[in-house]
């Protein structure tokens, strides 16, 4: 990280955000050595969804008895796609029981982008359904004999918004990471039967520490909306870290899209794993 500076919003006044260089290096996050054994298993499983239904999920875990912390991943608007499978395995590689439920399951099966298009046309997944799905996945993780009893929540894009929503409306998560979730702040005109309450209005109920990663060039959410969200978190004395990356927009982790920003993504992943390690613990 030589060329970018990051505003750590949570430590400074909003009008005078601090600029600092990230301290963690990518090396510090990998505790593996070339002479260590490493293994994982990753497969599609069936888990319970909202309302007692069954949905499919992608589950990846390190081999071994654990105990391991868990992470539930909420996929992004483009669907339950390859990037989310890879990211699920990435969490397992870092020592987490990781499950990514297919919250688009009720909309039918097919190529991820085609299912996502159907969901888009339908106006999205109802917030209540998502909360139910993720709560069930949390129960699944914590029921596993390898669980250390702690679990985090991760999501990007619409999944980032849903991370915050779920972290406010459920209990049992120990840390949550919202990556550029748009529409946490919503106008009254944006509210629908599926999205009846703006997530920001649940802030007082946030049940665990929150990490937010955002891009300064993003329009969904805008930096102003992120600041508004932060004001609300401060108002209720919540534990959080927000980082606003310059020269990055929406989805800067996505190596397969034009939005990818290498330096910001590497730093963001480092911050994310440091955050989870702090609140969830690992077996390393």
């Amino acid at each position, binding site marked *: 990280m030589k060329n970018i500076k990051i505003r750590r919003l949570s430590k400074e006044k909003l009008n005078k955000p601090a600029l600092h260089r990230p301290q963690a290096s990518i090396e510090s996050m990998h505790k593996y050595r070339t002479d260590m054994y490493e293994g994982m298993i990753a497969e599609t499983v069936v888990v319970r969804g909202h309302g007692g239904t069954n949905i499919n999920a992608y589950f990846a875990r390190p081999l071994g008895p654990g105990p391991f912390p868990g992470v539930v991943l909420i996929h*992004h*608007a*483009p669907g339950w796609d390859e990037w989310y499978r890879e990211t699920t395995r990435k969490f397992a590689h870092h020592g987490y029981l990781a499950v990514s439920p297919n919250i688009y399951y009720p*909309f*039918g*099966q*097919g*190529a991820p*982008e*085609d*299912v996502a*298009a*159907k*969901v*888009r*046309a339908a*106006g*999205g997944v109802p917030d209540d359904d998502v909360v139910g799905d993720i709560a069930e996945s949390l129960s699944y993780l914590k029921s596993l004999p390898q669980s250390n009893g702690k679990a985090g929540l991760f999501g990007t*894009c*619409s999944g980032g918004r849903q991370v915050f929503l779920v972290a406010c409306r459920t209990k049992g998560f120990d840390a949550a990471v919202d990556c550029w979730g*748009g*529409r946490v702040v919503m106008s009254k005109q*944006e509210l629908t039967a599926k*999205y009846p309450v703006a997530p920001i209005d649940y802030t007082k109920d946030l049940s665990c520490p929150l990490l937010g990663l955002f891009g300064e*060039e993003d*329009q*969904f959410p805008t930096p102003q909306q992120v600041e508004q969200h932060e004001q609300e978190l401060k108002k209720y004395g919540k534990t959080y870290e927000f980082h606003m990356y310059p020269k990055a*927009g*929406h*989805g800067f982790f996505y190596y397969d*899209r*034009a*939005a990818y920003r290498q330096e910001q993504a590497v730093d963001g992943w480092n911050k994310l794993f440091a955050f989870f390690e702090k609140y969830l613990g690992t077996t390393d």
Partner: protein
Amino acid sequence: MCTGIVENAKVSGSGKGPDGWYPLDQASVSYDHPDHAQSGRAIIIDFLNEAVGPKARIAVELTPESARNLVHAILASLSRGEGEGVRAKDEPPQ
């Protein structure tokens, strides 16, 4: 759904996908982050058939500027084919 901006239109016609032609019954027009287009935001148009399922989809992702060009081209073609009475809603009346 990052933006939540979607407009749906009932349509009649046919579309050709990987499995050949099929009847269309809906066009979903979104302003959102594209899957493939090299643009931060795009107009995404999905021509769908609800009865057939997710695979019945013809998708385009257009930069906002090119989407405007397409709108004008469609209206111009309609105007030439069906008369001057066809115009965009946002055009001032003559």
